[in-house]
């Protein structure tokens, strides 16, 4: 039975639960918008990275570098699109 629950994945799960609870502090305590957003950004990206490495085994095969490049490229373009659009249509309109 024990071999079915590898320590790495259990720890990963526990850590992701902790990150979720930390993120929830934004709701349950009284934070300023800036602090709250900072907390959310940090917890969300750590959590995503955790899934990628621990659960999705992104780097395990010999295509690992291609896979990381692909994801990294996608995230960069995604952020450019999100913040560029916000700049154009809200912040600088």
């Amino acid at each position, binding site marked *: 039975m024990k*071999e*079915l*629950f*590898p320590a790495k*994945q259990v720890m*990963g*799960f526990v850590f*992701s*639960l902790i990150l*979720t609870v930390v*993120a*929830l502090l*934004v*709701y349950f305590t009284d*934070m300023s*918008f800036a602090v*709250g*957003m900072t907390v*959310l*950004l940090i*917890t*969300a990206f750590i*959590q*995503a990275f955790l*899934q*990628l490495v*621990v*659960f*999705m085994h*992104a780097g395990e*095969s010999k*295509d690992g570098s*291609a*896979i990381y490049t*692909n*994801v990294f*490229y*996608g*995230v960069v*373009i*995604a*952020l450019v*699109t*999100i913040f560029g*659009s*916000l700049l154009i*249509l*809200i912040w600088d309109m």
Partner: protein
Amino acid sequence: MKIDHTQPLEYSTDQNQLNILGFWIFLGAEIMLFATLFTSYFIFEGRTGSGPTPAEIFEITPVLIETFVLLTSSFTIGLGVHAMRLGRKNAMLTFFGVTLLLGLVFLGVEIYEFMHYYHVGATYQTSGFTAGLLTLLGTHGAHVTLGLFWGLFIILQVKKRGLTPENANKSFIFSLYWHFLDVVWIFIFSFVYLKGMM
């Protein structure tokens, strides 16, 4: 078909390796797909017209259930892949089954949530904000629904044909898909709900 026994089953043929890399590239496209949906949501967040605002319609309880259910399902499918690599077919099928059940619970709560929005007057047609919100949530929910069918097919195939390289490959790719949906949900949870209720 050449089978390379030094690799885990899901990587053991050339076609299997192609499938995994190809699926990762598909996930790259999915990142952009959801990024576009997030962009539109952020643009529309404050554009509520005569409809309700985010803080008026969001409820913490269903969101909490959805989040913990999906996080747990992401953990169980990870265990499923681990069991598969140990060659423990029944354990793997159990974990996959639990994952799909959790997925079903998630979907049920999401349907409840949508009905709640409908009752408080936040329909698809109400405002830019509701259209943006429901398209983002709906696209994620549609992915989960598709995943439920896909996962069911994979369970049936593993049951019938055993842990062949082909089935292992499909199961692994399905796990990538499911984890990815969890990642997307984390961003929805953080930047739609928590940001909206902050």
